[in-house]
């Protein structure tokens, strides 16, 4: 999986895209971990704007990313979440642990 990502002042933004299911999950998870391990960000934003489908496999990915960011004592935020992935995220209660929004993160 090739993500578009950019880094600015220890703030890492990763643009996710396409369908996030179990078939795609392992690749997404290792690509995300690789980015975080390389950049050691203090803030990470997962931008869901181009995600067309997500099932509970995506929840495991978010939890995995959250653990990695907690280890760095950094923050994680999910932005631009479309309605279908949003419903899956809310069903899992993940919004109690991570900031989740439909909008772009405040600059």
């Amino acid at each position: 999986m090739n993500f578009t990502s950019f880094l600015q002042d220890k703030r890492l933004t990763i643009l996710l895209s396409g369908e996030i299911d179990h078939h795609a999950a392992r690749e997404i998870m290792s690509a995300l971990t690789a980015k975080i391990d390389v950049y050691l960000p203090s803030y990470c934003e997962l931008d869901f704007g181009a995600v067309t489908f997500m099932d509970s496999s995506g929840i495991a990915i978010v939890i995995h990313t959250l653990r990695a960011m907690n280890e760095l004592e950094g923050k994680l935020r999910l932005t631009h979440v479309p309605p279908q992935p949003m419903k899956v995220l809310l069903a899992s209660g993940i919004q109690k642990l991570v900031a989740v929004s439909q909008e772009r993160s405040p600059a």
Partner: protein
Amino acid sequence: MKPENETLIRFPSLSSNEAFARSVTAAFAAQMDPTLDELGDVKTAVSEAVTNAIVHAYPDRIGPVTLKLRRLEGNVLEITVKDAGCGIPDIAQARQPMFTTGGAERSGMGLTIMESFMNSLSIRSLPGRGTTVRMRKKLIGRGEAACRP
């Protein structure tokens, strides 16, 4: 209940078939005039059920999965996913939110999501013989939704 339409599809438990199962379900449901939200719900539910057959039922081999779709009276979509895999020893435990035997790659939320996104979920399972998951959802559809204030 006599179905007004139905289809039966059989495929091996390859993870690439998760997307295939979603597409087939969306295509079948299209004739029921679903809203975008309803379509999202049924695609999510079928993705969860088929993924379970692929990941849990056959942990170390490829086995058969069948997906049966039926349109029932009253615009009810019925989705049945069946495997001949290892079975679920304790169904009540499996249905608990966050219960998983799948490790860090799974969230344990699949059955919870199927239950909340569909109107009903029933699971029959025999250890060593396989599992059948049946879900139903009444689709209100775009026609009626458009009339709501």
